[in-house]
């Protein structure tokens, strides 16, 4: 059979985590997860170091607060600056990592979905494959543009507002900071909701059209000369089954490749998120200057990054599953 629907090879960034044997999805997923979890340990060590530095800063500021005759404002400003300096470098690295992961996922999707579209069309889903591709490509482009042009800069805006809010100590920018965060969450939620709705409706509507077309073809085949009809029917069945097998193999490989690209950065950002949340909780015990709110905000920024990378990955996974499920 001269059909070839092979998923593109996983890019270099995810190659280290990609399991060698992708025939069994369950064991491949387990291998991938085990490999990706290896990145957690060094990140945990680094996060613990940062947590200790933060605790020391907060403790120092709390002690100095008693000596400050201006109600602790100078100490708080110095504390906010110190915490900002300690956390901004790590946060910047995580933001770059998140943005890069989203870009890599999008690039891989651009290679994977033409293969899935062609394989689904070969399997008889001509209308649904084109519709699924259109939806996936449009929403991927929208999400990618949104994240790179708006949401990533807004993470910096959020952090800047959080730092400024903490430094002034008046809570003037608190509402603006919360609005920025709310807007980012709302954007991601809207894009994903519209996307999943579109994919659900498209799958049902175009799937019905394809099923009707396939049934019409089968009726036509059965009406021709018996021997030729039998040969045509067998050959059609062989092509449909062959295309289905290739589509499933490409889809499973594609899902694993997407996870290989996504899991390690997601876990790294996740470790930072959890460690910052833990540090904020710890510092709240002896924080008399309200600095734990700034640490909490840095943790929230990591949470927003997790949401962005998670949304990009989810978009690719849902699309791939729709292509896999799109058999008529």
């Amino acid at each position, binding site marked *: 059979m001269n059909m070839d629907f092979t998923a593109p090879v996983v890019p270099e960034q995810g190659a280290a985590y990609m399991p060698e044997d992708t025939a069994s999805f369950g064991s491949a997923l387990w291998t991938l997860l085990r490999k990706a979890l290896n990145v957690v340990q060094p990140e945990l060590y680094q996060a613990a170091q940062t947590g200790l530095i933060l605790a020391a800063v907060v403790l120092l500021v709390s002690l100095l607060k008693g000596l400050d005759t201006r109600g602790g404002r100078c100490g*708080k*400003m110095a504390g906010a600056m110190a915490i900002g300096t300690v956390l901004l470098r790590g946060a910047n690295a995580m933001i770059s990592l998140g943005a890069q992961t989203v870009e890599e996922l999008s690039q891989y999707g651009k290679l994977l979905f033409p293969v899935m579209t062609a394989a689904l069309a*070969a399997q008889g889903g001509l209308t649904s494959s*084109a519709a699924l591709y259109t939806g996936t490509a*449009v929403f991927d482009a929208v999400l990618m543009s949104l994240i790179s042009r708006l949401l990533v800069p807004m993470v910096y805006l959020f952090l*800047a507002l959080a730092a400024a809010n903490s*430094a002034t100590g008046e809570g003037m920018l608190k509402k*603006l900071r919360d609005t920025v965060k709310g807007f980012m969450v709302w954007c991601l939620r809207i894009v994903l909701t519209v996307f999943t709705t579109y994919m659900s409706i498209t799958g049902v509507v175009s799937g019905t059209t394809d099923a009707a077309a396939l049934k019409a073809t089968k009726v036509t085949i059965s009406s021709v000369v018996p*021997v030729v009809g039998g040969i045509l029917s067998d050959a059609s069945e062989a092509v449909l089954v062959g295309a289905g097998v290739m589509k499933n193999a490409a889809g499973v490989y594609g899902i694993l490749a997407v996870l290989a690209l996504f899991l390690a950065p997601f876990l790294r950002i996740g470790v930072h998120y959890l460690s910052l949340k833990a540090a904020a909780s710890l510092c709240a015990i002896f924080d008399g200057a309200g600095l734990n709110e700034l640490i909490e905000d840095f943790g929230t920024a990591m949470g927003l990054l997790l949401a962005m990378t998670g949304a990009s990955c989810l978009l690719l996974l849902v699309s791939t599953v729709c292509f896999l499920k799109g058999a008529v």
Partner: protein
Amino acid sequence: MREYVLAICAAALLCGLLLSLPQEGLMKELIKLLCASALTLCALSPLTRLQWSSSQLISGDWSRVGQDYAAQGEKEAQQALESIIRQQICSYIMDKATDLGLELEVEVELDGEHLPVAVTLRGAAPPYLRLCLEEALSQELGIAKEKLQWIG
């Protein structure tokens, strides 16, 4: 981005210093208002430089591209189907010929719906066996006798 974050932090520090000065009543409220306005303007300043259009957000005719990929897939499937049908019909004819004691090479021509329309048979065959094979092919495969070409 770095300049922006530094500008925000610098503005926040300046505001913090201003607010830490000992003032009372209206003056304190005025300074607070000015600081809040300055910080908000500073924070939102990048928004004035944003230039957005739908064509920037969604570029490309995705629908047409999707149809092209789907058509490519269908074309590959059709080619595979044609190849299998051709192979199977050739095997069928050769089996028939073998049953009659003939050794032939067979070429099959298919129409747009993958139905056999013409057959070229290469090899020596007595006239009677030719007639038998032609009859079988015309009845079982629906190929017109005049579309059966003998070479050799």
